[in-house]
């Protein structure tokens, strides 16, 4: 089994929510603020919902979709925002642009949307995250060690390496796939993991799927020997 000198270090992170004081009461205000809020706000509202509600998968909507659908009451726009393929977008800017263009199109085609207002006290409050990232004790030099670490780390760690990494490194891949390809030369396995859509399953389900792919790879390696 291949062993690398550059081990995979499992990180984790915890978030604290910071209030920005920016609130939208209707769709035009949401659009205006979406154009200018910090990147961390966009990330917060398209990803936190997923992590906070791990047990509700598949496909929980993002915060914008939930608000337009359930608070403003426009299911159509809510569905359009929920359907944005975040998996195909590798940067916060791309996610922001997709949100903006979806809402712009909706406002152009259905001007009545401009009249919809959130009930008092239920405006969309933009939050951002302050992230505290840290190394976990789990380190892998081999594929077996990687599987062992993956079994033990928290869901926060999986979220960090699968979701945040894509946006941190600006590629449509993740930390796991990068290391498997670069260090263990397991390109096929790396590609299989990179193709998984983490947005449409819980992190726990995602962990099980990745572990299954690794176990299959380990079995294949064993057979070859």
């Amino acid at each position, binding site marked *: 089994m291949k062993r690398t000198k550059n081990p995979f270090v499992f990180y*984790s992170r*915890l*978030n*604290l*929510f*910071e*209030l920005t*004081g920016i*609130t939208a009461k209707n769709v035009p205000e949401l659009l205006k603020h979406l154009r200018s809020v*910090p990147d*961390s706000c966009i990330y917060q509202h398209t990803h936190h919902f997923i992590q*906070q*509600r*791990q*047990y*509700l998968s598949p496909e*929980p909507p993002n915060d914008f979709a*939930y608000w337009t659908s*359930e*608070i403003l009451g426009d299911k159509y726009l809510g569905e359009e925002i929920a359907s944005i393929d975040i998996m195909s977008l590798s940067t916060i800017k791309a996610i922001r642009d997709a949100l903006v263009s979806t809402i712009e199109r909706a406002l152009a085609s259905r001007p009545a949307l401009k009249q919809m207002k959130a*009930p008092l*006290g*239920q*405006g969309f*409050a933009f*939050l*951002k*995250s*302050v*992230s*505290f*990232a*840290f*190394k*976990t*004790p789990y380190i892998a030099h081999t594929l077996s060690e990687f599987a062992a670490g993956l079994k033990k780390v*928290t869901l*926060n760690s999986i979220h960090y390496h699968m979701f945040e990494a894509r946006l941190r490194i600006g590629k449509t891949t993740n930390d796991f796939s990068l290391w498997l390809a670069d260090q263990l030369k397991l390109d096929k396995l790396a590609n299989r993991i990179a193709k998984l859509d983490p947005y449409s399953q819980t992190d726990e389900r995602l962990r099980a799927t990745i572990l299954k792919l690794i176990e299959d790879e380990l079995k294949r390696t064993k057979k070859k020997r």
Partner: protein
Amino acid sequence: MPVLADYEPIVGKDRIEEIKFLASRLEGRSIQHVNSTAVGGGVAEILNRMIPLLKEMGVNTWWDVIKGGEKFFQVTKKIHNTLHGAKDEIDKEQWGVFWETGRQNSADLTCDADISFIHDPQPIALVDQKGARGNKWIWRCHVDVSHAQSAVWDVLRRYIIKYDSAVFSAPAFSKPLPIRQFLIAPSIDPLSEKNVKLPKKTVDEVLKHYGVRSRKPIVTQVSRFDYLKDPIGVIDAFKQVKKYVDCQLILAGGTASDDPEGAEVLQKVRERAADVKDVHILLVPPNDTHINALQQASAVVVQKSLREGFGLTVTEALWKAKPVVASAVGGIPLQIKHKYHGLLCRSVDGAAFAIKQLLQNPDYAEALGKNGREHVRLNYLLTRHLKEYIMLFLSLFYPDDIVYLDSL
């Protein structure tokens, strides 16, 4: 008093390890909590449980309580009410009492910890020590100030902006401020008497104590008798439900002998319920086990408030995996995403429809209840609160959005 290890079976060992790790990063820092009462009220309840847990992890922390005379607490009660939106005025003399007591407390109480964590408006003036000490200051607002009287808020604001950070319980409660503001929701303690799983025998005994039979499904609202909790609206909703489902209603609240308005509301509730079958209006003494049992015995828990702070009675019901129908006010929409963790309503008719839906679809009600419990487990238990307070303390020393700490 529970220790951290007691929470492991509920939230998982990994989460407890993460909290311990974060706490270890506070080594060498001291934290002083200050509020206005050592007993009674939600703030004291939380601090009573949280401070021993912080100490268990080696954090150098303590808790002080300010002093004040009757006049001072009359003013602070008025401040509290006006921050909640009550139309009242605080005159110059009353503000004089407030600030003079603040100055006296500042002279008597040394705030020289690395972090002074000040809870609510009563001790707000202590921040005047900041210049001399050069330490960090946090103001924790436990009040829903979304409808605050601006005359009162503006006076307090002059002090709030002297702090390094402010903390609010819900996004809607925050105000434009030139300092950092954080969102930290309150929490419930799953190991407290109010929230532990009770044996069926105890639940039955409590029902018997109040003369409630368990053969018909029970719909319950636990709240003091206050117009803002809309107990009359609950009875009206129940009347609509009762046409289709043979059920019973419990309105359980504290005694109202010291509250003239409470007595008036209770009287009106009794009048409205007079000709409605199967309504139980219960004056429950401060007894956490009784409240717990009534919630556990319920088929549906209602919180039809017109205004609400965070709504911890909703959190308690969700934690007991009860299907909940609640108004979309205050912190309730944070706890209930409509049709995910419970049902939100905005009117008597809406509440009636939702209660009916849950009573007639027990599988759906059970699914919502399970989701609700899991939502609370992940987001509204004491351990999450503890973790976020530690991150809040750390944030004072790291201004960036991403902070890299050493190894776990």
